[in-house]
């Protein structure tokens, strides 16, 4: 009999300190649902985050967690995956941490294709530091650091990930937790680097990109007849869409591309963790053989 895992297994008693109504709540819930749906146990998961409101998420989940310095979770996650490829390594960080401070790591993770999943809590603003414009803020967005409106064009995560060679690129909206849980599950199942950019309102500092703003614009790619995520050209066009209509769902996916860890020669004899475990087991095996000779 197959027993479905209950998402409650990921619950903790830690008090959540996000603002009431924050889109991060739905992301937390969707991640728990996705992992439970995939029947992945908490000890098999490593959540890696950076600094920011969303990066507090590992504290709120019963799983292995690692809060790194600002912008560096992808580097740490890649290292963790190389050390122990058995782990499901999931990076959870905000748009500033991922695309701003960690922008360099983002581009190079896309081209390296480690078998990790990244969920970006993209609220188009720096929330924890009280409302400065972020890499994904739209041009003209007024904040304390852009009193005349943001000058730069917004960073386009999907287009940049596609150009840099990412093998799974998806987007979801925190107002649709069921859809988001499905997309996260697809990302975790994908063998290679999976980017899931989640559009989420910051209910305190971003009063432009609200739940209603997103609801008026998002549409599901799954419902678009003929859309094939393996079509790179079609994905490129979808990645450019922003403004009046915003596509959510799997924008691009290509399978069968070797992962970074597949190609590291030093791992051919096993991962560092598996070798350590072997070493730890060896004396026990010798002891066992010796005892067997004595008593059997």
């Amino acid at each position, binding site marked *: 009999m197959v027993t479905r895992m209950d998402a409650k297994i990921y619950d903790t008693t830690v008090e959540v300190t996000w603002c009431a109504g924050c*889109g991060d709540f739905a992301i937390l819930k969707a991640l728990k649902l996705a992992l439970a749906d995939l029947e992945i146990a908490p000890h098999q998961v490593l959540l890696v985050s950076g600094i920011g409101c969303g990066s507090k998420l590992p504290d709120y989940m019963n799983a292995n967690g690692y809060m790194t310095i600002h912008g560096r979770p992808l580097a740490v996650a890649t290292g963790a995956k190389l050390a122990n490829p058995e782990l499901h390594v999931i990076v959870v960080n905000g748009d500033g941490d991922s695309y701003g401070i960690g922008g360099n790591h983002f581009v190079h993770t896309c081209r390296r294709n480690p078998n990790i999943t990244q969920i970006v809590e993209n609220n188009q603003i720096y929330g924890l530091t009280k409302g400065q414009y972020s890499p994904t803020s739209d041009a003209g967005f007024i904040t304390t650091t852009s009193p005349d409106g943001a000058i730069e064009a917004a960073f386009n995560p999907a287009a940049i990930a596609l150009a840099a060679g990412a093998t799974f690129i998806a987007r979801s909206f925190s107002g649709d937790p069921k859809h988001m849980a499905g997309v996260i599950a697809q990302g975790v199942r994908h063998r290679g680097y999976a980017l899931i950019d989640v559009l989420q309102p910051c*209910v305190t500092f971003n009063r432009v990109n609200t739940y209603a703003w997103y609801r008026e614009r998002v549409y599901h790619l799954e419902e678009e007849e003929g859309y094939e995520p393996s079509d790179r050209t079609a994905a490129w066009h979808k990645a450019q869409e922003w403004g009046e209509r915003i596509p959510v769902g799997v924008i691009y996916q290509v399978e069968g591309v070797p992962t970074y860890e597949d190609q590291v020669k030093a791992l051919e004899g096993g991962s560092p963790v598996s070798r350590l475990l072997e070493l730890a087991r060896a004396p026990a095996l010798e002891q066992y053989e010796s005892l067997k000779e004595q008593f059997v």
Partner: protein
Amino acid sequence: MEYREFITQVRERGKLASFEEAEATTLSVMRALSEVICRERAVSMQPCLPVELCCILELCPPEVDPFIDMQTFIGWASADLDAVGMPDRTLGGLDLFAVDCADEAVRRCGLVFCVLKCCMDRSQQEALARELPEEVCDWFRAA
């Protein structure tokens, strides 16, 4: 009940500063409701609600997301609440600070629910309550 009377009642019950504030509150809470009720429920509520509010309920998606909980509901319902305080001068900067508006958001949901219940009979209230996320259902029943 007429639209203007509905908003006035929300304003009076909540001692809100203006008609416009009460109206914004009502529209936000109704928009939140539209995310968690099915189309059939929205249609069944039409005879007892002002047409302006029915239009908002009609925005409900074709399929209700069963995982929308009280936090997402509050996110929709508090869209009009000012959640930013004065510049934080303790550090000499111009940074704003966040104001915890959870209690106020829940109170305002209660205000709108209270007037909404006045427009509905008991069976309609029960049918609506059954479709609400758990905690939101509690606020509705308590209103």
